[in-house]
Each structure stands twice: as structure tokens, then as C-alpha cells.
């Protein structure tokens, strides 16, 4: 029903790059699901129903990965055989580790104060956006996968922090 050998970009007919036309991705994903979704094969044979389910699962997984910039970047690096999490990767620069500590302390200090948390979330958003811009440059124009992997590791931390601030806000709201 679909070619399972294609990579996620090929599956949706998209160029192999980080900066993506999200509207095109969504359109292509929906087009694909319209053809393969199990709802289209309720009356079909067992074999067809099975392959419909597999194709639909594949489309969902590929869409999930390409939709989120961090997952997309990891996937691109994986395609280029760069190990983001592996032990071979370079250690994080000490400034960033220090910055991590600062962020953590700031979140702890703001713990139950929604205004402080919201303020933190805002400045974090700025930092995250800057890092994504840098990541895009490194991946798409400079082809510098080693430094792109650094950006990804930074963003992993920052995104996790964003989650934690969200959790803290939810607790403060409840």
C-alpha cells in the first residue's frame, strides 16, 4: 500500500531538510491517510485490512516525527548516521552546563508563583527559538552535522525544561 523502504521525507514527497513547509506536510499526511486508513478497508479482506493498518501506522509515526522540530532534527541526524545521544559525542561546553544550573534554580525558585513561571516560560521561548534558528542554519545551509548535534542536545534540555515549567504552572493553577 505504501513503500516501507522510503524514509519519512520521501513518504510525504518532501525535500530532505530541516526547514519544512508544515502546511504541505499536513496536506500530504492527510492525503496519504485518506487512502490507507483502516476506516477505508472495514469491508475488505483480512490481508488488505492488515496492510491498511500497517500503512496507517507508518504514516502516523512519520508524521509525528516530522511535525515536531526536535524529533525531525534527530531523525535527520539519524539518516546522516550521527549519534546524538551516543558516548562518542563531544561533551557539552561548561557555559551551557552552568546555564542549565541557572535555569533549574530559577524554576525551583518560581515553584508556586504563576507570574514568575510565566515570565520564565517567555524568556525560555526566546532561547528555544534562537537555538532552533541556529540548528536550521547548521543543518540546511552549513551542513555541519557535528554542531547540529550540539544544538539538538541543548534543545533536548530546553524542551524538557519547558515541559517542567508547564507542569509547575499546572500545579500552581490547581
Amino acid at each position, binding site marked *: 500500500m505504501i513503500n516501507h523502504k522510503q524514509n519519512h521525507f520521501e513518504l510525504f514527497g518532501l525535500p530532505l531538510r530541516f526547514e519544512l513547509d508544515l502546511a504541505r506536510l499536513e496536506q500530504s499526511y*492527510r492525503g496519504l*491517510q*485518506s487512502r490507507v*486508513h*483502516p*476506516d477505508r478497508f*472495514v*469491508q475488505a479482506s483480512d490481508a488488505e485490512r492488515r496492510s491498511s*493498518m*500497517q500503512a*496507517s*501506522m507508518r504514516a*502516523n*509515526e512519520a*508524521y*509525528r516525527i516530522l511535525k515536531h522540530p526536535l524529533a525531525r532534527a534527530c531523525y535527520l541526524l539519524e539518516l546522516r548516521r550521527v549519534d546524538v545521544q551516543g558516548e562518542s559525542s563531544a561533551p557539552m561546553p561548561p557555559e551551557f552546563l552552568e546555564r542549565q544550573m541557572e535555569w533549574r534554580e530559577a524554576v525551583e525558585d518560581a515553584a508556586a508563583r504563576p507570574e514568575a513561571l510565566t515570565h520564565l516560560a517567555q524568556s525560555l521561548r526566546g532561547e528555544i527559538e534562537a537555538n532552533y534558528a541556529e540548528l536550521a542554519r547548521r543543518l540546511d545551509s552549513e551542513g555541519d552535522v557535528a554542531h547540529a548535534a550540539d544544538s539538538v542536545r541543548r534543545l533536548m534540555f530546553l524542551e524538557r525544561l519547558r515541559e*517542567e515549567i*508547564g*507542569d509547575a504552572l*499546572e*500545579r500552581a*493553577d*490547581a
Partner: protein
Amino acid sequence: MALLQISEPGMSRAPHQHRLAVGIDLGTTNSLVATMRSGIAVVLNDADGHALLPSIVRYSADGNTAVGYPAQSELARDPRNTIVSVKRFMGRGLKDVANAENCPYDFLDSPGMVQLRTCAGVKSPVEVSAEILRVLRARAEAALGGELVGAVITVPAYFDDAQRQATKDAGRLAGLNVLRLLNEPTAAAIAYGLDNAAEGVYAVFDLGGGTFDVSILRLSKGVFEVLATNGDPALGGDDFDHRVYCWVVEQARPAPLSDEDTRLLLTAAREAKEHLSYHAEARISARLGSGDLIDLTMTQKTFADVTRTLVQKTIAPARKALRDAGLTIEAVNGVVMVGGATRMPQIQQAVADLFKQAPLNNLDPDKVVALGAAIQADVLAGNRAAGDDWLLLDVNPLSLGLETMGGLVERVIARNSTIPVAKAQDFTTFKDGQTAMAIHVVQGERELVSGCRSLARFELRGIPPMAAGAARIRVTFQVDADGLLSVSAREATSGVEATVAVKPSYGLSDGEIARMLQDSIAHAADDAQARALNEQRVEANRMLESVTAALAADADLLTANELDAVKAALDQLGVAAAGSDRRAIMAALERVNKITEPFAARRMDRSIHRALAGKRLEDMRF
């Protein structure tokens, strides 16, 4: 020569023949059946013109079974054999049923699901539900004049795997071909969206008789995409009745009530609740078995006061669903109200306050789910021409995972993943020569197994003996379009395989399930600490085992003093690992690491030496 084409019986059909399919809303309080007639979804009434079938089943000793209004009229007289709100027991053990002691039933705890002892024998909730479905099926076949090709049955979006499986089983037991289990808020969104040509982001707020769901959907030309769902599988209009009932008992202070009196007062409470949706006050009047008269008046204000905490319980799930969808309140174009309980003014007000807009009530909240299910059944039965149909993308409500060392959950499929979905995760063995692996499948949001619902346990056997960490066991989770899970495990090097369709065991109560997600936020910090502690313990045990094994093989490489020092360090590590101080375990681990360094180096030398002498390096594994 052309071969004659022979269709299988029942498979052939004329090109434009309409295939009879229905949508069924199997509700806690009421059930309905609907179908498409000349392109319009309609609810099918019974011979007396009733659309709603009360979800009540009465068993008699003579073998007769009454369903709906005839059963309802016997409710106060024969509460023990007249089953109401059976949906609350679907896929649930006795421990899971909230307020079981207030139910007048003779419960029988049994593995997997609670059963009910009636004068007509022991009945499972699946059987009771099937009675309701059978009546709806007969109603539909009489109205449509033929046998049904299939049915779409709706379930609360927040139903877990056990509850979904039980619902599908009930459908099959009633002789229905279940085309799909459809989430109730999604069904409502289909009916609403098609009716209003709606586009944009919609929230569906569905408070039924016994369950609460909130779903966030994006509607755009031809696609209904669920972005996130949340809820409480044990919150509904019944709970509001119960609060009114408690208020009545508190005010009137009657002598201890019989089952019959309790049933009478609960019915009076429900009537008062319904009256208060449209009037400033309601009179509650009932003559008890003792002859005592209860006569009270409840105002809307009092009603709102005694149910305030229940209303509050709907707010957090709605907020969480929005957050999971990655949206703010401002992004929501409309809020569709579903379920009879949303008629209550305090609910309308709370929803308006939360979403900062008046909720949409232009479809009958009792019927909208059945109508949506009928529309989807029509599509699935193949009655729509290509291009005149739409795509429905739904999600799984709760995360699915596996138990790993130390009682931790390894999440395999995150909540709110679009279904169908498959995910594989690799695991390895913990001990040298381990030939079997226990696989424990859980559902929920907490990081510890004890906080999640246990769905199934199975074993992968026949793993060839290998060094710890060498086996590669790939566990694959698969959730189909009905939201039902199956799990398989395979060892990569040998191809040994084990598969289960998850027929869930019961574990947690409804309330606990609901709490799981709510607590997951509150306990995120506790969980993280418990997780870190457990990880250190696992690490400590691994170290103890491997050093002990190494000593058994090569203790001769150490001097007596060195050996004593290593043993002392191991003892300290053992003591630390039994305690709950993470830092102490870390320090003890560090000490063992340091003290065994020369030992490890000498073992390495020896193993290289032996390998060169023709022995296998693997035999020398540290």
C-alpha cells in the same frame, strides 16, 4: 474461457444497494440507536415513540428479562435484580467499583471483571450490556426491515483497554458485527461538524450519566482530527444524584434505609436534579417503607453548593487536554456540549467561564452521540461514494508501557498518539544465562508501576542463554483503530517470539485511573526522585552480582588484604542499596568501582591471555 465469478454468500450486493448499518450510544443511564435515512441521521424510536432506552435490565426467576422502561418500573420494588448503570462495571473488578457498598447488588468478585448474582443466575456486566444492545438491534431491524450489516458502538474517550474490550465483547454477544468502537466526543463532533459545516478548533465537553470526557478536535474540510482527549471515567450525572441524595438524608435524618427506600430516594434525587435545570427550586417528596414522609425543597443555589466539587473535577481535565493539544483557550472556536448532565446550569456556567465563551447547545445533548455514530457507521459500511466521505483521526487516551527493573514504567506509546499506532522498544536481559523474560503491560501516566493500571502479563521463554545485556528483546505495542492494544515480544538473535492480544486483568479502581493522570502532574517530582532511587538500586544490584561472580571465578588474582577490602566495600554497597538514600548508594557504588579497578585490570589481562591460548573471551566476562 472466462471463469464464472461466484461471490461468497452474503458478500454480493447490487451496486447501489444500501447496506443497513447503525450507530449505538450505549450509555450509563440511557441508550439509543440511530441510522442514516435519505442522507439524514435519525434516532430510531421504539413502538411507543420513545427514543431513549433506559439502560436498565431486570432479571426474573421465571427466566424473563425486561429491558428499558418495563425494567425501570420495577426498580424500586426489586432493586437487587434490576441492574442500572451497568456501564460502571464494564471491565472492572469489585475493588474498582466506586460506592459498591451503596449498590443493592449481590456482587461476585471474579478475575478480570466483577459479576452480579441475580435470581436468574450469575451475570457479567458484558451479558447485561448485551441485553440492552439486543433490544436496540431488534428495534433497528424492525424499523429498517432487514438484517444489519454492522454497528458502530460508542465508548467514552477515556475508557481504557479493559473497558473497550468489554464493550466490543458485549456487541458480539448481542449478535452485532462491530464495525468500530468510536469515542463519544468524536461521534458528537462528527454530528455537530457536518450539521454546521464547522471549521477550526472545537472542544467537546461530554458529561454523561457516569463518565466525563473532554476532547479537543480540529475540523477542516473532510478531516476530523482529535488533537487530545482527557477525562474521568467515574464522573457523571449519577454522582450529582448521589450528592442530592446525601443532602436529603442529611436534612431529613430518616431511620436506616432499606434497599427499596434508597432506590426511591435516588430516583427522587434524580428528578429533582432534572427539575433544577429549568426551575429555581425543586420539591423532593417521598413516602418511605416505614410510612415516614420526606418532604423537602431544594433551591438551585443549594444544588450548586452541594455539587461544587464535582463541577470542579471537570476543569482540570479540560485544561490538560488543551495543554496536550498545544493550544490556548483563545484558540478554541467553539465548545460543543454533550450528555444530559451538561443541562445543569452550574455546568454551563463553569464551561462558559473556563473557555470564555457561551457553549453550543444546538444539538440535543442526549442524541448527538448516537447520530454521529450512525453517520460514521454509514461510511464504514461503504454507503458513501468516494469523495463524499471524510477522514477521522482519533487518539489513544492513556499512555501504554512496560514494567522495567525496580518497578519503573518504560513508556512505549504516549497518550494522545494518533491511532492506529505501533511502537517497538528494545530491552535486554539482566542476568547471565537468563532464558525467560516476564513482560508486564501497564496503562497510565505515573512513572511507577504501582500507580498505573495493570493490563496483562506474559512471558517470553526460550531465550538462548547469553551474557547479561547481550540478548536483544524487541517488544512491540500495537493499538488498532478501535483503540485496542496487542503486544508481542521477539528475541532478535534467536527469533523466539511471544504475542498476546491484551485481555486485561483488573488492577485499579475507576477513581484511581482518573487520579492517575491528575496525580501524574502533582507527583512528577516525587516520581522523579523515586525513579532516581530505583535506578541507583538497580545499578547497585548489578554491581553486586557482577563483582560476586568475578570473585567466584578469579579471587586468586587478589591478595588477602585486597580481597577483604573488596568484600567490605560490597557489604557497604549491600547495606546502602537496602536503604533509601540515593546519595549513599552512589557513594558506595563509587567505592566499589574504585577498589575493584586493579582487579578488573588483572582479570582483563588473564582473559586476554586465555583467549590467546584458544579459549573464548565470552567465558571470561566480567
